[in-house]
C-alpha cells in the first residue's frame, strides 16, 4: 500500500495542473493510495509511523527538494520504502537518483527499482544528500583523535553523501567511492579580504567515521536543505541505510 505526502504548494498556482495529471497517472498505474498534506507544523514521522501500523509499505513524497529533505531528515529510520515525485523549483537531487520531473516520475515509481543508500546521522536527524555549514568559525574534532580549525576568520564545511556543492564537486567525485565518509573544508584565505569577492584557500579533505563540529557561537547547518542553528553537531554514518526508489542511471555511492 502507498502513502503520498504532498507539500501544500503543489495544490496552488502552476503546480495544481501538474498535480492533477500525476493523480490521474497514479490511478492508471494502479498506484493510488492515501494522500496526506504536509502542513507547516505537521510531523511527517508520526504520520508515517501511523500509516506503517495500518499496513503501508511505501511512502512517496510529492514536492521539491525541501519537502523531500523535510521528510527524510526525520523519517530515514522508518521501515518503509521511500519514493519521490519531484515538483517545484529546486529539484536537483533527482538527477543523482535518476528520477524524472513531475508526471514522468510515476513510471519510475511503478518500476519500483529499490536501492539502499547510506545515510548520514546528524545528532538525532538524518541526511541522505548533504550536510553543509556555510562560512563560520567552527572547530572540528575527528574521531576524537585530532581537532582542526581555520587559521583565518572562518571556514565552510560540507559532508557530501549523494550530492555535493560546486566548490567541492571535484573532491567529492574523487572520494565518493571510498569506504570512509569525507569532510571537505574550504577556509577563507589568510590576509585582507574583499567584501564582494572573498578569496578562498585550497580545500582540505579528510576521512572520518565520526566527527564533532563545535563553535563558540551558534552556527547554521543545512541538512538536505533544512536549516537549523546548532552549537555542537556530531556526524557519523547511520547504522541502517535507507531504501529509495531510483531510476536506472542513478549515481552510485559506496555503502
Amino acid at each position, binding site marked *: 500500500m502507498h502513502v503520498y505526502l504532498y507539500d501544500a504548494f503543489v495544490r496552488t498556482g502552476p503546480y495544481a495542473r501538474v498535480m492533477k495529471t500525476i493523480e490521474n497517472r497514479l490511478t492508471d498505474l494502479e498506484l493510488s493510495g492515501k494522500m496526506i498534506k504536509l502542513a507547516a507544523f505537521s510531523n511527517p514521522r508520526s504520520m508515517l509511523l501511523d500509516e506503517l501500523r495500518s499496513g503501508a509499505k511505501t511512502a512517496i513524497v510529492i514536492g521539491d527538494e525541501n519537502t523531500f529533505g523535510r521528510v527524510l531528515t526525520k523519517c530515514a529510520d522508518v521501515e518503509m520504502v521511500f519514493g519521490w515525485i519531484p515538483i517545484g523549483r529546486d529539484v536537483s537531487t533527482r538527477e543523482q537518483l535518476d528520477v524524472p520531473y513531475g508526471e514522468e516520475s510515476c513510471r519510475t515509481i511503478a518500476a519500483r527499482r529499490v536501492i539502499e543508500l547510506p545515510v548520514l546521522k546528524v545528532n538525532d536527524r538524518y541526511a541522505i544528500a548533504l550536510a553543509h555549514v556555510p562560512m563560520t568559525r567552527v572547530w572540528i574534532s575527528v574521531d576524537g583523535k585530532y581537532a582542526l580549525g581555520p587559521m583565518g576568520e572562518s571556514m565552510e564545511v560540507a559532508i557530501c553523501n549523494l550530492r555535493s556543492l560546486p566548490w567541492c564537486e571535484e573532491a567529492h567525485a574523487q572520494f565518493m567511492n571510498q569506504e570512509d565518509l569525507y569532510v571537505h573544508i574550504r577556509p577563507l584565505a589568510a590576509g585582507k579580504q574583499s567584501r564582494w569577492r572573498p578569496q578562498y584557500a*585550497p*580545500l*582540505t579533505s*579528510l576521512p572520518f567515521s565520526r566527527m564533532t563540529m563545535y563553535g563558540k557561537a551558534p552556527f547554521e547547518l543545512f541538512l538536505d536543505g533544512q536549516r537549523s542553528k546548532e552549537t555542537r553537531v556530531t556526524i557519523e554514518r547511520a547504522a541502517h541505510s535507507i531504501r529509495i526508489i531510483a531510476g536506472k542511471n542513478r549515481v552510485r555511492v559506496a555503502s
Partner: protein
Amino acid sequence: MFKSRYTEYEDQDETSAASAAPTGVSAADDTVETIVGPSVEVEGDFNSKGNMVVQGTVAGNVRTEKNLRVERGARILANVFAQNAKISGEIRGNIKASDTLELTPTAVVVGDVEASTLIIAAGAILHGKCMMPGSHVTDAKASTKSSRARTRQTGDVDAEAAA
C-alpha cells in the same frame, strides 16, 4: 580552479611516486586520500591509512601507512612516520620512513631522520642524526670498546694459563 588543483596533485603524485617511491608502489596507490590544506591548523595525532598531503600546520604526530608529501609552507610540529615521505616544508620532530625519505631544496628538518633510502637535495636543511636500518656499519666507539674487552678477556685467559 579546483579542477586544475586536483589534476596538479595527481600529476605531482605521479612524479613523486616515480622519484620518492621507487619500489612497491603501484599507480593505483598514488591517489591522495587525505589533504590538509593551507589556512587550516590541526592539533592532535593525525593517522591515515592512505596517501597524505600536508599543506597547512599540524601540531601532533603524523602517521601514514603509505606516502606522505609535506608541501612548501607546511609545518609539522611532532614526529612523522610514513612509508615514503617527500618533504618540502618544515618539520620539527623526528622522521621515520620505512622506505624512502626525500628532502627537497626548501625542506627544513629539525630532528633525527631514519630511512632505508635517503635523498637530500642541495639547499635542504637538516639538524639531526641520520640512521639507516639494515646497514651493517658498526659504530667506531662500539668497535673500540669491544676490541678492548676482547684484549682484556684474552689477557685474563693468558694469565690463567701462566698460573
